């Protein structure tokens, strides 16, 4: 039995992301980190793999830079890591990503659970979970804030989902695709020994040929990015006695319909 999760390296949230004059996004030389949302899925994969007595595998799709996220995952305690790289996946769109991801899950044996973080901080898309579940033919449970029980013998899982303004408890058949929220756990920091082991690990790289999958025809192409025009802000200083200032301020706020 195994639990599979996906991750990627994203620019450090402190990085200054900019759009260059060529319409491409850069983030300077800033270091990359494991996509912060994925850490919850990685943690849950470790915990639940132990829980069901299986192994936890992590996959990244993309170039060498994503090995960093995989090494971080191994250092945290994931059992195995795989990277998928293929010229046809560069650049990758949602549907191609889902096709490659689903093929990778199918290549692995006896997968019970496919875990995802809420979204990727860099591109901010949350569409791949839906697409992957569809491609795999697995049920999809989104916004899972707690895994209540996994019964591998009966082939079921019970989870708690966070809805707007409430919770929902759902039982599903296994295997299943799940996306988790931040409430589900507190991701661990990798240990020094974990980091040392991970830095020595060689991570296998699979091509699309290895996965035996061909990509869907690309129907959309991103042409360029551009910045929003800078917001123009006006600052007005209000002078006078405090009581006068306060009155003027309230008047102006009412005028601007802030209050």
């Amino acid at each position: 039995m195994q639990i599979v999760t996906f991750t990627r390296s994203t620019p450090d949230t402190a990085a200054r992301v900019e759009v260059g004059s060529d319409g491409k996004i850069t983030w300077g030389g800033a270091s990359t980190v494991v996509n912060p949302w994925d850490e919850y899925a990685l943690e849950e994969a470790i915990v639940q793999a132990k829980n069901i007595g299986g192994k936890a595998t992590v996959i990244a799709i993309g170039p060498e830079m994503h090995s960093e996220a995989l090494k971080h995952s191994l250092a945290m305690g994931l059992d195995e890591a795989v990277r998928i790289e293929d010229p046809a996946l560069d650049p990758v769109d949602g549907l191609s990503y889902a096709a490659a991801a689903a093929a990778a899950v199918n290549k692995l044996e006896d997968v019970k659970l496919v875990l995802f973080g809420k979204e990727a901080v860099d591109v901010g898309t949350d569409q791949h979970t839906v697409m992957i579940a569809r491609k795999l033919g697995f049920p999809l449970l989104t916004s899972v804030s707690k895994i209540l029980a996994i019964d591998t013998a009966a082939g079921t899982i019970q989870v708690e989902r966070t809805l707007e303004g409430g919770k929902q408890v759902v039982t599903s058949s296994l295997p299943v695709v799940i996306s988790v929220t931040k409430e589900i756990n507190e991701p661990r920091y990798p240990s020094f020994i974990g980091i040392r082991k991970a830095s020595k690990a060689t991570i296998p790289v699979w091509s699309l040929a290895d996965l035996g999958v061909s990509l869907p025809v690309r129907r959309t192409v991103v042409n360029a990015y551009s910045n929003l025009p800078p917001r123009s802000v006006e600052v007005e200083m209000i002078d006078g006695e405090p009581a006068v200032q306060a009155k003027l301020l309230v008047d102006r706020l009412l005028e601007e319909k802030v209050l």
Partner: protein
Amino acid sequence: MGAVDQRDSALTPSFTPEHEALQSLVRRFAQEKIKPIAEQFDESGEFPLETIREMGRLGLMGIEVPEEYGGAGMDTLAYVLTMIEVAKADASHSTILSVNNSLYCHALMAFGTEEQKQQFLVPVASGEKIGAYSLTEPMSGSDAATMSSRAVLSDDGTHYVINGRKSWVTSGPVADVMILFTMTEPERGNKGITAFLIDASQPGLKRGKKEPKLGIRASATSEILYEDYRVPVANVLGKVGEGFRIAMQVLDAGRIGIASQALGIAEAAYEAALEYARIRRAFGSPIGQFQMIQQKIADMRTRIEASRQLIYHAVLAKARAKQTGGRYTTEASMAKLFASETAAFVTDEALQIHGGMGYSKELPLERYYRDARITRIYEGTSEIQRMVIARSELGLR
């Protein structure tokens, strides 16, 4: 001796991807978990047990100890990088870390027998237990050979009976195990000191009250009182009469750690000052525009980098000494002397750049200033470092 040693002048220790990964892990942990609690623990003076335990789990409590003894199996550079990052978030945490790593674990690695390592090193390197190093006494600090505590061999030769008072024991209030230096043959002076491995749970050991301190307030320090404490002869670390040499040799490693701590505190203060000099305005411009502030910035940054190079220099000397069986006392002393004086200079200037806000408890500048002060005192005062360096250069004793 004599000519200046130029062997390492163009070298720094080799930074591997592993070091980078460790550094970013510690930086993140220190900023996310330690920094937010620093002020509260400084205020209360409580020992931050929870974060120290977590640091143990991550492998920070036995960085240079091989994995088979519960450590992380890393090198001195990894230890230095860890100390800098932790000290940058909170100096108290780094003091606890340094005693555990470069005094306690280091002494056991260098001088412990296999049985001693199993019993006394494994639990401490893995962070399960906390270690301490106890040399100082109320009437004997810099001049350690004048100590008045005594260990007397029992008639049947199976154990020693220890009596006396040790002072300034870092982690004394919580330590499970300690390395104690005490006199077995007072008439032999230096050569009459022996090192013992002490299990603090045994009868005859009393912990004194916690010292109220100026800085590193969360690093609990106390006296330890020995009253007919019995320690088996198997707990002698190294040989009888070898204690002073062990104490000094271990301090070589310790001083690289304190230098790194000083550098971390200095970096924290410097970064705050740099930011403030950019945003604080006076006389119509950011204060960073004023030459007098610029001079401070330039001097702070330069001394910080010079400290770092001296620390790397000592790290290389230590690695070389490991191969040749030599010492690196001078290199460690120079790093400790310069980095601790730099920390004092930088925290003072950084506070000055903040003006009145620097003096306020609203900002951590006043804590950096108080915390930096200890680095010129423990593990050998600045005066003692100068003495050590000069004596070795001059060849005079």
